[in-house]
């Protein structure tokens, strides 16, 4: 049941984050997404995409690509598989179980969970660990706001997100490519960072199933696989949870998975990336260009904590 007396933010926010609040959000402004995307050639489509204010070379990736080129192995490993296989995915009703080191320990309906949270547009770069990237206008709310609602206990150091497990609806789960269900997690201070959002829409529309409907997480300074999709469980833990890719291939995918051009994947360089639709590669940026998160990792060896 939604309650109106949420704890005051300072009661649950770690002090370091609370004090840092002024220093963030290099949020690309809410650029109006006018101009429908013109069909008539790859070039035309990409050239006509609106620009993100302030970052002249970050044009929005077209809707077709954002919703047609997806890594969502629950619906198949091909980039086009999710769009093809997720169309009948049922997201209503949807419930999310909140458990672990938290006061609001129960199952919420999706509507209940997001009730009262302010949805805004965030235009973020999305860098995949495979070496490609997009620019996406997400619609979502700060995970921080949700966490403050839920009230983690003093022992909560991590938040874990679990994707739906449903072999009938998600045919990819019949294949043993990954240990299902998909689990991702963040350190609590990463989760509380104002750049971290829970996404319920894209391009001003309801989030399509292939993008992780009805609710997914986006952490723009990390490789895309950290962003768990179609979340059904949120668990607060004291110790670092196991996470799917890290468990599958620990040498190649770390828990942190921060975008880092200096730390290569064992099999390919992470120094550059290809923005989808472009022919030549561009330099990748430390923390995907979101330098304001650097204090979260002060004193850590990022080549070991990859």
């Amino acid at each position, binding site marked *: 049941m939604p309650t109106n007396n949420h704890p005051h933010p300072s009661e649950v926010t770690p002090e370091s984050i609370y004090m840092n609040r002024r220093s963030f959000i290099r949020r690309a402004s809410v650029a109006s997404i006018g101009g429908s995307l013109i069909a008539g050639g790859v070039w035309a489509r990409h050239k006509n995409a609106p620009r993100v204010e302030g970052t002249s070379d970050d044009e929005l990736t077209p809707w077709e*690509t954002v919703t047609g080129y997806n890594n969502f192995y629950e619906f198949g490993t091909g980039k086009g598989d999710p769009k093809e296989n997720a169309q009948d995915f049922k997201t209503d009703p949807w419930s999310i179980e909140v458990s672990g080191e938290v006061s609001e320990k129960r199952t919420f309906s999706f509507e209940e969970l997001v009730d009262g949270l302010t949805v805004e547009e965030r235009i973020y770069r999305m860098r995949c660990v495979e070496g490609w990237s997009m620019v996406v206008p997400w619609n979502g709310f700060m995970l921080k706001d949700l966490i403050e609602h839920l009230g983690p206990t003093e022992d909560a150091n991590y938040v874990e997100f679990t994707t739906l497990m449903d072999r009938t609806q998600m045919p990819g789960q019949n294949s043993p490519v990954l240990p299902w269900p998909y689990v991702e997690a963040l350190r609590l201070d990463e989760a509380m960072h104002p750049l971290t959002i829970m996404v319920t829409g894209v391009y001003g529309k309801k989030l399509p199933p292939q993008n992780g409907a009805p609710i997914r997480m986006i952490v723009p300074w990390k490789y895309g696989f950290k962003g768990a999709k179609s979340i059904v469980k949120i668990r607060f833990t004291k110790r670092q949870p196991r996470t799917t890719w890290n468990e599958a291939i620990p040498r190649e995918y770390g828990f942190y998975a921060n975008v880092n051009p200096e730390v290569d994947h064992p*099999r390919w360089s992470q120094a550059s990336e290809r923005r989808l639709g472009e022919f030549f590669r561009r330099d990748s940026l430390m923390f995907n260009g979101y330098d304001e998160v650097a204090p979260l990792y002060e004193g850590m060896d990022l080549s070991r904590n990859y």
Partner: protein
Amino acid sequence: MATLPPTLSSRKRDWIPYAKIALWIALLAPAFILLDRILLLGQFSGGNFVDDPVELIQHWTGNTALILLLLGLAVTPMRRLLGWNWMIRFRRLFGLFAFFYATMHVVSWFVFDHQLALGPIFKDVLERNWILVGMMSWLLLIPLAVTSTVGWIRRLGGKKWNRLHQLVYPIAILGVLHFLWQTKLLERDPVLYTVALVILLAVRRWIRRK
């Protein structure tokens, strides 16, 4: 129904030139489909919106090269097992087109991934095993493509030429390994190609023993 005679010389094969033309068209088709998908939005060949043209070029050309290599390797077993001796007439085309697509694959990587900067190209080749094996596979294809003409067969003599062209085995193994190695997880296609290659090599050994 007449069965095919065991040797090539025993009967005129008027249809072979036509079959060769048809094969040329079939082997060029992947290149046309690729051009159509990238430049004309698939007006002729269909297909979805191309999100990442470079990825499409690289996967498409690499895949085609591997398939043609495997088809080329299948020629001899088919001849032996089915008695289709005429198939040998088409083997060179498979090999040459495998080289053509492999070259497009490598050149697109030189151009799009490295803008022809030699330093980074060498660095990548030496540091990444899967690129190294792919590059070796392509480099080994070059002498085979060069010596594929009748003139070269004469110049080298059948025995030497045959021995040189045994290189196609390491080429195919390296090529399939390159594919297998670059995927994040074990995916279907590289596994299929590996199985196909293993079967082809096994059949060959078995034929030789007989």
